[in-house]
């Protein structure tokens, strides 16, 4: 095999593995859109808030690294609930722009809390698997990316059980298909919405920790790219579709890593956005989208 082919496959592998974190962020955007038909632009920063809280608790308690995940999950779930309360619950149902703007306010607020707390400096984030490298044939498997992929897979498995095997999941799916009919069947919209915000927040917390340890640092500057990447993922897969978000995230990861290899850092994001624009124009429903939007 030529060197070029080797490199292309290597980037494919890295992109695929890193894409799993985009998938988690994308799931957050897509699930909230699924039940409410609205965007939560504060979701990326919710994930970041979870990771920061975990880092804070870790510094305060000097506890084991394993503490990162439960703390981040709990904190981000709580932030998710707060976002639902202040940005969605009291807003008019049929006017999506008001909560959109409110979540932008939330994005600024949480970002500023982080800047305030850390004096705007990036904070080193522990990378438990950062040193591990594995040889897979001629290719190199980065331990942290492999770890990220496995954890993401676990989260997706739990989510699948939750959505398809529990009563809450049934309620969530019915609300996302037909809110009025769901309400007529005695499902409380408010409770389902709150539950979805908490669950997606928790997923965001996991994603935040994974991204923090893969990047090796946390910075408030991450919030905007996370938001944009999450939206791109959700749109690529088709808004409202969880499998779509997973495929979209992996695809985005691969495209980014290949574009990085072929065109360099200056053009990487341009390729991503061009792909997105083309996708939106020629296939507005995304890969797994329904036609209702």
């Amino acid at each position, binding site marked *: 095999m030529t060197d070029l082919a080797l490199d292309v496959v290597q980037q494919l592998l890295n992109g695929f593995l890193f894409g799993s974190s985009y998938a988690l962020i994308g799931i957050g955007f897509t699930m909230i*859109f699924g039940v409410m038909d*609205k*965007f939560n632009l504060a979701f990326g920063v919710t994930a970041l808030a979870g990771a920061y809280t975990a880092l804070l608790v870790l510094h305060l308690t000097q506890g084991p690294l394993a503490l990162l995940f439960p703390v981040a999950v709990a904190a981000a779930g709580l932030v998710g609930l707060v976002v639902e309360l*202040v*940005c969605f619950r*009291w*807003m*008019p149902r049929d*006017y*999506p*722009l*008001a*909560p*959109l*703007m*409110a979540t*932008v*306010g*939330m*994005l*600024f*607020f*949480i*970002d*500023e*809390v982080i*800047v*305030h707390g850390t004096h705007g400096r990036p904070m080193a984030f522990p990378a438990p698997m950062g040193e591990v490298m594995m040889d897979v044939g001629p290719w190199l498997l980065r331990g942290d990316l492999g770890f990220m992929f496995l954890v993401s897979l676990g989260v997706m498995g739990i989510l699948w059980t939750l959505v398809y095997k529990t009563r809450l999941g049934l309620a969530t799916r019915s609300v996302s298909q037909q809110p009025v009919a769901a309400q007529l069947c005695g499902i409380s919209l408010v409770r389902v919405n709150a539950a979805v915000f908490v669950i997606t927040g928790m997923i965001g917390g996991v994603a935040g920790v994974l991204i923090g340890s893969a990047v090796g640092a946390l910075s408030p500057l991450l919030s*905007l790219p996370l*938001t*944009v990447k999450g*939206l*791109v993922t959700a*749109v690529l897969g088709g*808004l409202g579709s969880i499998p779509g978000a997973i495929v979209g995230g992996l695809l985005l990861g691969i495209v980014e890593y290949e574009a990085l290899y072929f065109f360099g850092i*200056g*053009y990487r*994001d*341009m390729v991503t*956005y*061009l792909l*997105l*624009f083309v996708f*939106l*124009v020629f296939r*507005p429903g995304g890969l797994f989208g329904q036609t209702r*939007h």
Partner: protein
Amino acid sequence: MSLLTLFGFRILLGLSAYVVILTGQISMAQAGFYALGAYTAATATAIWGWPIVPAILLGGLVGGLFGFLVGFPALRVRGLFLVIATLAFTEIVRMVFLNLKYTIRVGDRTIGPAAAEGFRGITYYYENGWSALQIMAFTWLFVLAVLAGFWLMDRSRAGAVLRAVGEDELAAASVGINLTAAKVAAMAAGGLVAGLAGALYAHYATYLSQEEFGALLATFAIAYPLVGGTGSVAGPIAGVLFFSLLIDGLRFLGDWRNLLFGVLIIAMMNLRPHGIIDVGLVRRLRALLHLRRERAYAGD
């Protein structure tokens, strides 16, 4: 003085998003048009040596042209999908300027867009000895012209057409409104105004860096009309005043100001979800005005 000039750019940017919002579309492309206007006009004066007025108009035209071009594919995408598509456009424009290199050497200075280093040496105002007052007046000349244009449009058939499309596309189409024409026209007008704003800003700032023209600027562009309300052209102005007064008025709070900023946006959207000056308020004010006029007639 320079604060008033800054208000001018923000109001133009808010108005450019406002005209698109009237048709029920949310465009994050305004920051891209703004950047295109800024780089074009700056290139015209700094590299080609054009006088200021044609350069600014060229910036506006380029913005308008791209608005027209983006308007067509955007027809296929609606609602929140358009937000993403136009955000992608803004980011693509930003990436182009991140990589664009087109410089000349004048003496010992490098002028023009130098990729990641930004666009240096937009010194038209400085070279021609304009005072801050003159710059402010020149900027507001454009602001007032656009304001007047939009105000007249709002009261004319064109405004009614745009609002009809925004309220209900199906109903608008069924009474014979050409949806394509209305949406593309709104997008082109928005692009033109954003291009003008960017062109004016470039000469005020004297230095451009692609970082300024990202998602944050696009968010502010739509935040002005959304927070201020889309009931009339006063809406975006109210939005600009709301944000600008918060940014500059809360300075005494020091670091805490930025924290309060987000909280206030959330509070505003909860209290007045349709913006400060929404359609309802405009209608009530009109009714009030009308009532008074009628009373005056009755008194005769």
